[in-house]
Structure formats: C-alpha cells, structure tokens
C-alpha cells in the first residue's frame, strides 16, 4: 500500500476531537514537559520530554486522522 493518500476530503466528516480534549491534553503536555525539564535529573528529564513529545504526536494523529500513527500518513498529492 505505498504512497498512501486520502480520497478527496469529505466536507461532512465529523472531527475526531472536542476542543476541551485538545486544550486539556495540550496544557497537560506543556506543564508535564516543563516540570520534567526542571525537576528531573538531566538524562531522565530528556527521556520524559522525548516520550511526552511522542505521545503528543500520537494524540495529534488520533485527533486529525482518527488513528494514532496519523502523523505519518501522507496527504493526497
């Protein structure tokens, strides 16, 4: 299934998120990243921030493409 691409966007497609979800997760991500960066030891903090970035990417994929790895899916050419 190479060159994955989407069919033309369906204008009636419902969003896969609610604004409240996005706001809460985004704020939580920011707060945890900053706290991890400040209070954890350097190497542990780095690992936690990297993990949080990956998790946030999974959320973005879920919200926008309805699947966690959606951030890796190509747009139609």
């Amino acid at each position, binding site marked *: 299934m190479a060159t994955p691409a989407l069919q033309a966007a369906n204008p009636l497609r419902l969003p896969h998120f609610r604004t409240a979800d996005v706001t809460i997760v985004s704020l939580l991500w920011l707060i945890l990243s900053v706290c991890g960066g400040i209070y954890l030891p350097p190497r542990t903090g780095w690992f936690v921030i990297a993990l949080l970035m990956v998790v946030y990417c999974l959320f973005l994929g879920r919200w926008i493409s309805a699947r966690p790895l959606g951030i*890796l899916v190509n747009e139609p*050419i």
Partner: protein
Amino acid sequence: MSLSRFQMMSWTVLLLSAFFDVALKRLHVLSSNSAALPINISMDWRLWALMGISATSLVGSPLILSSKTNQEPQPKTVDKAAAALNEPVVDIQRNSQGTLYSNPRIADASLIDMFQGDEIGNTAYVDVSKVQMFYFTIVAVLAYAYALYSAMNDIYPARGFAMPTPSDALVALLGISHAAYLTSKTTQHS
C-alpha cells in the same frame, strides 16, 4: 505511511527534546548567576545539515511524485499489480493517482507502506532505497542519541552548552542515503 515523515519526526523529537531539557535546566540552575549564559546552547552546522537533509526529503518526495500523477499506467502493469496484491483491477485503477498507487481510505495506511514502492508497478515489492534510508536513519538517530546522553553528563558550564557535533561521515552517510531515496523516486516503474 511515509518514511520521510518518520525520519523527520525522529530527528525533531530527538533534538528538540534535548534542547528543551538542557535549556530549562540551565535556566533554572544558572539564572541566579549574572555572569552565566543559560540559553547559550550551540548547535554545530552539521546538525542543521542533518535537519536540512531530512526536510529536503520531506518536501522533495511529493514534488518528485507529483509529476507522476499526470501519467497513465500501462494496463499490463495494473494487471500484474492486481494479481500480486490480490486486489481487483478496478479498485487499483479507481484509487490510483496517475501511475502512483494509493490507499482508498486513511485506515488502510500501515507501517509497511514505508518500505513499499510508490507506483502501481512496484507497490507489491520492497523498495530497497527505503529500507536503506530506514536503517541509516535508525543507526544515525541512535548513535547521536548516545552522544547526547554522554554529553548530558555536565550541562551546566556557565559559558554555554554545546550539543555534540556529528561527524562528517555521519552527515555524508545520511546525505547519500537521502539522495538515493529521492533519485529512486524519479525512476519510472509503471
């Protein structure tokens, strides 16, 4: 799913998380020292080159493939792909974009896409240039992650922190890999 997106995200997460972590810690610890430069975190030009190479692949791939959306695939090629993929010919023709194979729905995208050919003629086969780029990316990211891990032994020099410098060989290796990846996309397979 796209290999160029995967490698771009890998480098972004690796470098930005390290930069963010070091910057926050240096600001927290060194802010009381008026002589210190807490956010003086230097990145060698080779690091920018690595990010540039990744970005070039991300932007270059759709540019190269867009020229193939106006071409018609050979009927014989479509028949062969249909037989190899065990899909109806009509479905492949309906979903294709020119000579490019395309998933009908976003739910059909999978990790295997990262290693398959882009065109109808080679979608049933492994694209070796993609496998090579995947390995190079994994090796380079892990090697640089280890270098960063070692460098984080001391992140509080008052004059600044330098991110580890990748070797010329690493940059050349990734450059060649990405060049092969992009060149293989220009070749006609349908």
